[in-house]
Structures are given as C-alpha cells and as structure tokens.
C-alpha cells in the first residue's frame, strides 16, 4: 500500500473528546476516512457481487429482497412440556425457526437423577434425558416443515440421533430434516467450557456426524462454528473472528483427513457470531469473515463449488452487553446489535430479551425481542438493498483491517501447530482472559462508558417481573426418568450400549450405534458414560 498522509485523518484536531478513539478490538479509529485508505481495494477481487466469490457483499444475490433472515429466538426452559408451549407461542407470533436451549445437565450429558444436576434442571434451558422428552418437546410441531437449531456440543451426536428418531416416529425420513446442531467442540475448550471428552475423540465424534449427515441427512447443517461464546467469554471482535474461523479450518482439515471431499461437506458448515455494541466494527467483522472463509476454502483447501466457499451465519446479540441496571436500556442495545447483524448480512438472528441479565426471558420480554427484529425488517428500510454500507471508506477500511489482524492470528496459531496444540498450550484462553480483564478495567476507569452502569446511572430498585423456574420441575424430571428406566427394555438397551462401546474402541462411525441406543430409550447420560469409559474426560488448566 502506498503511504497515506495521515496528517489529515489520524491526528486529532483541536477540541476532540478523547485523545484516541478505539473500537472494542482496540483498533485505533481515525478522524476521517478518505479514498486513499481504500485505494488498493479491488472491487472484483476483494468485494465481488453479492452471492459471488469472495462473498464480501453477501452470501446471496438478492439477500433480504428475496427472503428476510430467519427470526430464530433461542428458547428453552423447564421441562419439555413447558418449552413445547413456548415454541408454539413463538411460532404463532411469526417466528420462522426453532432454536433449542438445553438444560446444563443435558449439555454435559449428566442424568437428571445425578446429584451433580442438583438445582440445575431446567434452569438455563429445557431438560432432556431420553427420547420421551424429545417427543414431548416437538409434540404437534411437524419436523418436516420447520428448521430447528440445537445448541448442543458434547452430546451433539446424541441429540441429532434423538431428533432423527423423533422425526421417524412422526413419519418423516432423515433426508426431509432441516436444522443445525452446534457440534462445535473446539470453542468449548477455548471459551464456553461445556466439554466432555478430550479433544481428539471429540473431533472424531464431530467427523462422524459430518460423514453421517453427508450421506443420510443432506439438508442438515452439521456444525455451527461459533464465535458467539468466544466473544461472551470476553474476547475482542478480532479474536472472535480469528479464533472462530481457525476452528472452522480445523474441522475442514479433520474431515478431509477422514477422506471426505471438501465439496461434499463444506456446504453444510455454518457459523454463529456475536453482535456487540460497536456497530461498524460488527458489520466489518461479518464482511471480513465471509471474505476470509471464501479465500481459504478456495486457495488452501481446494474447494471448487461456490457453496463450499459461501459463509452463512446465525447471529445472536451480545448477552454479555446486557446490564442488570436499568434493564429497559437493553432494548435499545439489542436494536443496535440486531441492526449490525442485518447490515452485515446475517442469515438468521436471535435478539436477546432485555431481562436476560436478571433471569431467563419472560414471555413479554421475549415478545419485545422478536418485535425488535420485525421492526428492523419491515420498518427501517435497511433490508431493501443488499450490503448498504459497501463502499464506505470507513467500513471497507475496517473490513480490510479485521482481515489483516485475523490473518496475523492464524499465523500465531500455525506456530503452535494448529488449533488443538494451541488449546493445550492455553493460547486462546490466555488471549481471551487478558482481553476481558482489559475491557473491565476500561469500564472501571470510565475509558468506556456503559450507560446506566458507570455513567448516567441512577440506582433504582429493579421492577422487572422475573421468570422463575419451579424447583418442582427438577423433581418431576427425576421421577419421569426413573419411570422410563423401569418401562423400557433394559436387556435390549444393554446390548445396544455394549455394541456402542465396542464401536467406540474401534474406528467405525458411531452415529448408527447411537441411533440404535436412543431408540431403546437410553438416556443421554448413559450414552455419554459408555463413551467416557473409552474416551476419558477432559480437564482444563486454570488460566486467568
């Protein structure tokens, strides 16, 4: 790049509010952006038409002029029956896809009857133990008509098996099913912490699901490669971008090592990003993500199909940005964050409810969150043209900058020998811990202002009505699991679990064995424990 005379743009003129302006990735923002800041930008090579390589301007040609994004509100609490009612409520109010939040014990593959599940059942999501719960969860919802996203990682293969069998009992075949399992274990070690097994067997399970779906569930998105949780753990936007894409590349490499053709599986990989408060930074992040993914898929992994290079993503607004103080302000934050996701070309969106720093969303708060999306879609006009911010000196410069910084991170990860060695060296964990501590310090020193928290704050008692999860739900779930265990064919189940264990000791694809066990009403916990016997468990270092 030719030298740019920064005197006009970077240096502050007199009377500016701050000495330096920095976004949440600590990138210094100039006073003014000029044509020379993007003079090397090549329209065809760097941007391209929407729907064309390198997809910077959007994954599809018509974007929201064709079809609006999927409004997919993450929901789940209590037991399957309660969540089923909430789903029906959301669908009646115009939601177009389901997104399942699971209870923590389900996420860790721990049975409701286990003492470790004490106090956790149904608190953060819906409690699922067996096929029985899954049948209740989707009762009256036609699984061939709806697309379902399931936020599940350690036991992802089991939940997929449960979904397939639930649909089977509704009379549908696997090839009719549409949806996503998160199935992204790498970010669990990096940020979210709901791992079960060590990285290597976890990667095997993931490749098993990719292989299985490629053959039998072709419309299913096999991994939702997630930056959301990396960001929630305190990373910067650049780190979210870089670590998420690095994870994506690691899955591509693992599947290719299994002998799968990149063009067979890559079209079914999708992404999941966070949307935080800095509007332009977020937009630039999404645009850079599409470009980086396309470039690497084409140049490094030899993808031939456009579908394999096209990055599609779901967005959720930043839970971490919600404040418990003056919670109504969160409605405005969520609006800005949702807007950023739409301006960045998201394929689906979850907008948080304003009360989530206090509790699980109440019905009213959940409705406002959905309405926020609908207002962005139908009233703001931002969905009327594709990639409206393209060509802005600032946005294009920032998109370039995000790509550049992400590439620098890829280099560093490469130096560790890849994502898994870098995880074991705690590289990501340290980077994130440092970033989150720095952010908190900036808030404490009022370098960053959070309205209603460290400035403009009035302490007033919280008057938001809260959703309470009845402790009875836990007891009910325990009883219902005990009942199932009595009623099912335990002989048959034992046989199936033994077969699963044998297969786990070998190298066969485990999906068919898991499906067989699920049909016999094995609990998620029982399947996980069978696999733990073979795979062992993971222990983290303490990094902070």
């Amino acid at each position, binding site marked *: 790049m030719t030298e740019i005379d920064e005197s006009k743009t970077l240096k502050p003129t007199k009377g500016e509010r701050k000495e330096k302006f920095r976004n949440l990735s600590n990138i210094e923002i100039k006073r003014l952006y000029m044509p020379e800041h993007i003079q090397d930008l090549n329209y065809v090579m760097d941007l391209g038409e929407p729907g064309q390589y390198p997809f910077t301007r959007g994954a599809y040609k018509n974007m929201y002029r064709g079809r609006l994004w999927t409004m997919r509100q993450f929901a789940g609490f209590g037991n399957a029956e309660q969540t089923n009612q909430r789903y029906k409520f959301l669908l009646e109010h115009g939601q177009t896809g389901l997104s399942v939040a699971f209870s*923590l*014990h389900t*996420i*860790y593959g*721990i049975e409701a009857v286990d*003492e*470790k*599940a*004490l*106090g*956790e059942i149904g*608190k*953060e999501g819906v409690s699922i133990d067996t096929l029985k719960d899954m049948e209740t969860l989707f009762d009256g919802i036609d699984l061939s008509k709806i697309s379902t996203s399931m936020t599940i990682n350690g036991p992802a293969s089991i939940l997929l098996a449960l979904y397939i069998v639930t649909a089977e009992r509704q009379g549908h075949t696997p090839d009719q099913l549409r949806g996503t399992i998160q199935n992204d274990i790498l970010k669990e070690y990096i940020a*979210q*912490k*709901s791992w079960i097994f060590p990285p290597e067997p976890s990667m095997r399970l993931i490749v098993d699901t990719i292989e299985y779906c490629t053959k039998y569930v072709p419309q299913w998105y096999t991994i939702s490669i997630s930056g959301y949780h990396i960001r*929630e*753990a*305190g990373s910067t936007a650049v780190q979210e971008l870089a670590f998420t894409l690095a994870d994506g590349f690691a899955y591509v490499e693992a599947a290719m090592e299994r002998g799968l053709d990149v063009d067979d599986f890559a079209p079914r990989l999708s992404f999941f990003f966070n949307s935080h408060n800095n509007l332009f930074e977020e937009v630039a992040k999404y645009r850079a993500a599409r470009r980086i993914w396309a470039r690497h898929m084409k140049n490094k992994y030899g993808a031939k199909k456009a579908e394999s290079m096209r990055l599609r993503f779901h967005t959720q607004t930043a839970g*971490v940005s*919600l*404040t*418990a*103080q003056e919670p109504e302000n969160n409605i405005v934050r969520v609006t800005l964050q949702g807007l950023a996701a739409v301006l960045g070309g998201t394929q689906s969106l979850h907008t948080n409810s304003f009360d989530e*720093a*206090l*509790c*699980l969303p109440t019905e009213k708060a959940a409705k406002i969150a959905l309405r926020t999306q609908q207002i962005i879609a139908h009233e703001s006009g931002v969905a009327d043209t594709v990639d409206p911010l393209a060509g802005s000196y600032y946005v294009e410069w920032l998109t370039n900058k995000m790509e550049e910084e992400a590439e620098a991170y890829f280099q560093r990860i490469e130096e560790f020998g890849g994502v898994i060695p870098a995880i074991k060296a705690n590289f990501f964990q340290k980077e994130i*811990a440092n970033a*989150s*501590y720095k952010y*908190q310090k900036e*808030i*404490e020193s009022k370098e960053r202002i*959070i309205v209603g*928290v*460290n400035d403009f704050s009035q302490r007033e*008692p*919280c008057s938001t009505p*809260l959703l*309470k*999860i009845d*402790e009875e739900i*836990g007891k009910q779930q325990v009883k219902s699991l005990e009942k199932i265990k009595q009623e099912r064919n335990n002989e048959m189940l034992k046989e199936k679990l033994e077969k699963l264990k044998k297969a786990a000791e070998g190298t066969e694809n485990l999906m068919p064995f898991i499906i067989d066990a699920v049909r016999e009403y094995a609990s998620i916990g029982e399947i996980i424990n069978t696999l733990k016997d073979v795979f062992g468990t993971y222990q*983290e270092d*303490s990094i*902070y």
Partner: protein
Amino acid sequence: MPEGRKIKVLVCKPGLDGHDRGAKVLARALRDAGMEVIYTGIHNTPEDIVNTVIQEDPDVVMLSMLSGAHNALCPVIMEKLKENGINDVLVAVGGIIPDEDKPFLEKHGLKGFHGPGTELKTIIEFVKNNLKR
C-alpha cells in the same frame, strides 16, 4: 490481623455453569488488590468447595453463579460448612441473583449479591469490610 497477613480468597463456580468470565476477572482484580486468590475452576460440587475451604483456610469464599442454581446449591454449601465447624469465613455469592432471592440466601448466611455491571472496586471494598476474622 498480624503483620504479613494477606487476605486469602477462594473464587468458585458451583454447579454446572461454565460462564467463567466474571469469576476470572474478579480473581485477577482481587490479586491486583493484593490478595491471595485461589480459583477452583468450574463444576464444583458443594463437597468440593467445602473440602477446599477446610484445607486452604481462606478468609473469604466467593461463589459466582449465573445458572439459577443458587437457591438449591448455596444452602447446601452453608450447611456443610457449619457441619465442619466453619463459621469465621465470609461467604459471598454473585452473578445473576434476583432481588427476591436475596432474603432467602441472607437467611442462610450469604452476603454480597453483586450482579453484572458491578464495579470491581465495589467488590474489593466489600471483601475488605466484611471479613469475619
């Protein structure tokens, strides 16, 4: 407090909740305030926590809970501490604790209840001012 004595703090995440950003930031802030901090990681059972308290003999235990399991787990922890004759340790819980749960938790001897957005210096002051020994 004798000369050379440092405030020793145990930062714990009870239950299955893995959201450890707050716990880690807090651990570092307490360190920077000159305290000796043990972070026990995630997924601690009440028994893990009480055993650690017995051996490490901290002045303060800080429980970080965001999953809604506080009403079920905190009283169990307090009960087990009592069983072991531990009554001179400040036990605080923070995270997402709805106002209406506070009286119940207070009754069981818990303090603090610092939620999202609390300034770190508020928590540091709280620790310094509420030590039981």
